[in-house]
């Protein structure tokens, strides 16, 4: 085959991929449009006469005929639940991952290193449904029966039912899910720091911790940001595990409730879509689900863009992304 034809053939494959991606973005937003159009900006707010779960049920039960479709939705509790769970897991996971990565690269004895690296790879590969299973069959009963006292349940029984399905379990399991990805990326980056810098710092008489913190970690900031973005995208899109452990109640956990806050349920966007899988054939419900999908898609697009810019700005000091 001549070079030209080969180039065109391979290029055609690449174009097919690109086309599918553009189609995806366009069609998800197009399908989602009616839900946004009917609610306007209030879609993102809270309020309305009913809870968000009831609103979704109403949409699902809309009478047939395009004129009678119900679209009313105030998605704030869902957005808040998503942001709360995602950001908490991200912050805790990032700290955890950074410390663990430093440990693996610098302080771990050889034998521990040889165990830790396969362990991290294993954790990263475990399917989310298995994390969900352990969460719902082990952690949820534990939290529900042992950590939440009956008094606490009685206190709030008129507002919300506290079973073990809670923000606490969701954040814990999600943190464990996203940490290995970050550890792997940060370890690779730390190992790629030029030895000239670390040796130069050691030769000046700076101790090991300060060397790795002020030189290596500083040098791999782009990688840390990339790891955080990757983990954030994974956390945002986590549907299955969260639908098993987070309680699936469109409730906004209130930090002012004190300790009870940790035990309150929530309903992230992605799990709402999975739970609504049966209802896609009902037109307005399907469109509302697409609206949630559109929010997720746009968020992950913004995340990628932000990470790209952050990496660019750190190039100034000679740190390659």
């Amino acid at each position, binding site marked *: 085959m001549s070079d030209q034809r080969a180039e065109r053939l391979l290029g055609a494959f690449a174009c097919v991929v690109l086309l599918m991606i553009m189609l995806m973005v366009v069609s998800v937003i197009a399908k989602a449009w009616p839900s946004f159009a009917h609610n306007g900006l209030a879609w993102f707010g809270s309020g309305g006469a009913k809870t968000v779960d009831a609103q979704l049920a109403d949409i699902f039960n809309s009478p047939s005929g395009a004129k009678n479709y119900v679209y009313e939705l105030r998605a704030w509790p869902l957005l808040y639940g998503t942001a709360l769970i995602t950001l908490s897991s991200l912050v805790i996971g990032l700290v955890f991952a950074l410390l663990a990565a430093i440990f693996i690269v610098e302080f771990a004895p050889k034998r521990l290193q040889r165990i830790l690296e396969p362990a991290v790879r294993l954790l990263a590969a475990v399917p989310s449904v298995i994390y969900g299973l352990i969460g719902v069959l082990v952690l949820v009963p534990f939290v529900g029966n042992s950590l939440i006292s009956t008094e606490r349940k009685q206190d709030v029984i008129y507002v919300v039912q506290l079973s073990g399905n809670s923000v606490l379990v969701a954040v814990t399991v999600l943190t464990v899910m996203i940490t290995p990805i970050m550890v792997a990326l940060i370890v690779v980056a730390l190992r790629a720091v030029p030895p000239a810098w670390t040796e130069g710092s050691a*030769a000046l008489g700076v101790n090991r911790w300060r060397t790795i913190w002020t030189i290596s970690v500083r040098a791999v900031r782009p990688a840390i940001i990339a790891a955080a973005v990757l983990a954030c995208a994974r956390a945002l899109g986590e549907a299955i595990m969260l639908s098993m452990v987070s309680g699936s109640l469109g409730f906004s956990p209130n930090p002012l409730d004190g300790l009870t806050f940790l035990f309150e349920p929530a309903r992230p966007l992605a799990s709402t879509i999975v739970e609504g899988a049966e209802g896609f054939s009902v037109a307005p419900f399907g469109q509302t689900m697409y609206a949630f999908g559109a929010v997720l898609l746009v968020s992950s697009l913004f995340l990628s863009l932000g990470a790209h810019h952050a990496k660019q700005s750190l190039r100034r000091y000679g740190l390659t992304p």
Partner: protein
Amino acid sequence: MDLMPPPPVRRIVLEDPPTVVHAPPTRGVTGPATAARPAARHRPPGAAVRERMHVERLSVAYAGKPAVREVSLTIREGEVLALIGPSGCGKTTLLRTLNRLTELTPTATRTGSLRLDDDNVDTLDVTELRRRVTMVFQQPNPFPMSIFDNVAYALREQARRRPKRPELAPAVENALQRAGLWEEVADDLDRPALRLSGGQQQRLCIARASPRNRRSCC
């Protein structure tokens, strides 16, 4: 910048006892400002000088392959000692051993004794040793920070309480002046160090290694 008269050259050839060659006194090269300088800095030949480091029968090997074999050497205060030899004969390894930098390589082993001011080097805390015996590398290796941060690095990281920038500025300026870099960078100390030219980077590394008075430097 004051110009010191060149120190006497002590030549150490491996098989012969060391000889000393005195440099001829400088004539008329110095400007009027330095002509009236006291001679206190120039040591008369033969006067007793303090010996700071003693290297006795030092051998260093990487994974069993010897790099330095049974070297004995004395290093005196205030002298400039040059190790000259063919490529690959172990000069850099010997230098790196002086402040225990070879311990960063897992396969390196060392025998023989090394003493700094009569303390066995192994009994000293290694970071303390490295603060007293500093090293500038063959290839310049400025950190990915600004010029100021590079020079102030050791001061910041070794202090008990993190010093503020106004406290560090005089020491940084002093170090840069002694390295001969001050005039070129004084206008913007916050420039990234990696943007300097090769020679400037190496002078920066020298400045970085000496923001305080150090005992020996290689």
